[in-house]
C-alpha cells in the first residue's frame, strides 16, 4: 500500500493556502481582507503550476487516481478559484463578519473538489463529496444578517443532506452486490458476475443522490432559491465549480465503475436529462431576477450535460469536458459583471439592467457574451460545446433527446435575449455611468476573449479533450 504523496501536492498547496489564511486572520485587526484574495489567487496559481508537473498514477493506497481527466478538471477548478476569489474581492464590502474565513472556505471547497476529481473509490469519493458540501453549506448561509441568505442556506443543507442519504444508500447496495468499493474493482467484479437487482437499485439511488450536486431533476428545487439568496461569489462557485465536480464523479462512476452495465443506466439518465431540459428551460422564461434566471438556465445546462452522459461514449465525455470549460468562462464572466453592477445599483432584477449598454458598454458586452455563450449562440464557445453534445447523443441513437435539446436551446435563446434586450434596447432608468476599475476591466476582457476564442477556434482544445477522455473507459 504505497502512499505516493507527491501526487497529492496540488491539493496540499490549496489546503495549505486555506490554512495559512485562517492563521493570518488570527493575528490581524478587523478591516478589509482584500489581500486575502490576492494570497488565495497566488496559492491557486501555485497549485496550477504544480499540476503541470503531475504525472499519472495512483496514490493513497488506491483511493486516489491522478489521470489526465483528473488533471484537466483540477485545472478547471483552479481557474474557478482564481475567478471566484476575484469576484469575492469585489463583493467583500457586503460581508460584515468573518471575511477571512469566507476566502478560506472557498479554498477549502476547491481543494475538496480537486480530491473529488481524483477519487477512485466510493469511500474517498463520498468523503470528498461531503467535504465540498459542508464547506458550501456554510458559505451559502454566510451573510447571516440577510433573511434570504439564511433561508437559502437551510434549504441547501436539508436537500443536500437528503441527497447524500440517497447517495450513500445507493453506494451501500453497489458495495453489497459487487463486494468492492474501488471503481476499477467494481468494474472487474461486474465482468465476472452480471448485475443483480440490488445493483440496479443501488445505481439508481446513487444517480438520484448525485443529481443534487449538478442541480438536475429530481434534486433541483434548491437551486433557484440558493442562487438568488446566497452571496453572489458563492452562487458563482456553485454554478461553475460545483457542477463540474458533480459531472467528473458521475463520469467516473458511470463510465469507469459501471461501464459494464451501460444498458441499465442509459435510459434512466436519458429520462432525467429530458425532464431536466424541459423543466429548467421552461421555468426560466418568466423569471425577473437575473441570478434566479441563471439558476434555471443552470438546471437546463445540467440537462445538456446529462445528455452527453447518457451517450456514454468518448465523444460524450469529451463534450462534457469542453462544455464545462466554456460554461466556466461564460458564467463567471457574467457573475463578475453582476457583482460590479450590484455594487453600484444594489439590485439583481433584470428590469434594473435597462439601458446598461449606455452606462457601461464593457459590463453590457460581458453579460452579452457570457449569457449568450451559455445559451449556445454561435459563434461563441457554448455553441460548439452544445454541438458536440448533440453529435454524441445522435451517434448513440438518442434522437428524441437531441430533438428536445435543440428545441430547448431555442427556448433558452428566448429568455437570454430578453435580458440582452433589456441591456441594449431599453432606455436606462438612470444615466450615470457605472465605474469599472482597471483590474476588473482586464479580467472581463480576458474572460470575454476566452469565450469568443473557444467559439472561433475550438480545434486544439476539443482534439485534446477528446484524446484525454479515453482514459475514462
Amino acid at each position: 500500500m504505497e502512499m505516493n504523496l507527491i501526487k497529492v501536492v496540488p491539493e496540499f498547496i490549496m489546503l495549505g493556502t486555506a490554512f495559512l489564511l485562517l492563521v493570518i486572520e488570527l493575528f490581524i485587526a478587523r478591516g478589509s481582507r482584500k489581500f486575502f484574495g490576492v494570497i488565495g489567487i497566488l496559492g491557486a496559481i501555485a497549485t496550477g503550476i504544480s499540476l503541470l508537473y503531475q504525472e499519472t498514477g495512483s496514490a493513497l493506497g488506491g483511493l486516489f487516481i491522478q489521470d489526465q481527466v483528473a488533471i484537466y478538471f483540477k485545472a478547471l477548478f483552479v481557474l474557478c478559484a482564481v475567478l471566484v476569489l476575484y469576484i469575492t474581492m469585489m463583493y467583500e464590502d457586503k460581508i460584515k463578519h468573518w471575511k477571512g474565513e469566507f476566502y478560506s472556505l472557498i479554498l477549502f471547497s476547491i481543494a475538496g473538489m480537486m480530491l473529488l476529481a481524483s477519487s477512485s473509490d466510493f469511500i474517498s469519493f463520498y468523503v470528498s463529496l461531503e467535504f465540498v458540501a459542508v464547506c458550501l453549506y456554510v458559505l451559502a448561509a454566510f451573510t447571516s444578517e440577510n433573511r434570504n441568505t439564511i433561508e437559502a442556506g437551510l434549504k441547501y443543507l436539508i436537500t443536500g443532506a437528503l441527497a447524500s442519504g440517497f447517495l450513500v444508500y445507493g453506494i451501500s447496495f453497489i458495495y453489497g452486490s459487487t463486494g468492492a468499493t474501488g471503481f476499477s474493482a467494481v468494474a472487474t467484479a461486474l465482468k465476472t458476475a452480471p448485475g443483480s437487482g440490488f445493483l440496479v437499485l443501488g445505481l439508481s439511488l446513487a444517480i438520484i443522490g448525485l443529481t443534487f450536486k449538478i442541480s438536475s431533476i429530481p434534486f433541483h428545487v434548491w437551486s433557484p432559491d440558493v442562487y438568488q439568496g446566497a452571496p453572489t461569489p458563492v452562487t458563482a462557485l456553485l454554478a461553475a465549480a460545483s457542477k463540474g465536480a458533480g459531472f467528473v464523479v458521475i463520469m467516473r462512476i458511470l463510465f469507469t465503475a459501471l461501464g459494464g452495465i451501460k444498458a441499465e443506466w442509459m435510459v434512466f439518465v436519458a429520462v432525467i436529462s429530458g425532464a431536466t431540459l424541459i423543466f429548467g428551460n421552461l421555468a426560466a422564461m418568466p423569471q425577473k431576477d437575473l441570478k434566479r434566471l441563471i439558476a434555471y438556465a443552470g438546471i437546463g445546462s445540467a440537462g445538456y450535460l446529462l445528455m452527453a452522459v447518457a451517450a456514454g461514449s468518448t465523444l460524450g465525455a469529451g463534450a462534457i469536458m469542453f462544455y464545462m470549460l466554456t460554461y466556466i468562462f461564460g458564467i463567471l464572466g457574467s457573475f463578475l459583471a453582476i457583482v460590479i453592477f450590484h455594487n453600484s445599483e444594489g439590485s439583481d432584477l433584470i428590469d434594473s439592467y435597462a439601458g446598461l449598454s449606455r452606462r457601461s458598454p464593457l459590463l453590457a458586452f460581458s453579460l452579452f457574451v457570457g449569457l449568450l455563450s451559455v445559451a449556445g449562440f454561435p459563434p461563441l464557445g457554448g455553441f460548439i460545446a452544445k454541438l458536440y453534445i448533440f453529435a454524441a447523443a445522435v451517434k448513440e441513437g438518442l434522437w428524441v433527446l437531441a430533438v428536445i435539446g435543440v428545441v430547448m436551446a431555442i427556448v433558452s435563446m428566448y429568455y437570454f435575449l430578453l435580458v440582452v434586450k433589456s441591456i441594449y434596447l431599453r432606455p436606462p432608468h438612470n444615466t450615470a455611468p457605472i465605474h469599472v476599475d482597471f483590474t476588473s476591466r482586464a479580467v472581463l476582457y480576458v474572460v470575454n476573449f476566452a469565450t469568443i476564442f473557444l467559439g472561433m477556434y475550438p480545434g486544439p482544445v476539443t482534439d485534446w479533450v477528446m484524446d484525454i477522455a479515453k482514459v475514462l473507459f
Partner: protein
Amino acid sequence: MVTLTHFLILSFILFSIGVAGVLLRRSIIIVLMSLELIFNSVNISLAAFSYYLQTLNGTVLVVFNITVAAAEVAIGLAILVNVYRSRKSINVEELNDMRY
C-alpha cells in the same frame, strides 16, 4: 436466525421513515433528526453487507458516514439558530420569502 435480509428490511424501514420525516414534518429540528435517521439506517445496511461479505470496506464507510452526519447536523443546528433569530420561528413553512 437473523439473516442479511432482516437487516436490509430494517434499514429500508428506517430509511423510509427518515425520508418521510424530512418531507412531511414542519419543525426544522425534526427534519434534522430525520436526516440523522437516514444516515444511520444506511449505516445498518453497510455494516450488514460488510459482515455478510467479510470485507472491511463497508465498516470503514460506516465510520466516515457517522462523521459526515455529525458535521452536517452541526452546521444544520448553527443555521437553525440564525433562522430562529431572523424569524422567531423554526417552522419550515415560514421559509418562503423567495419566489418569483
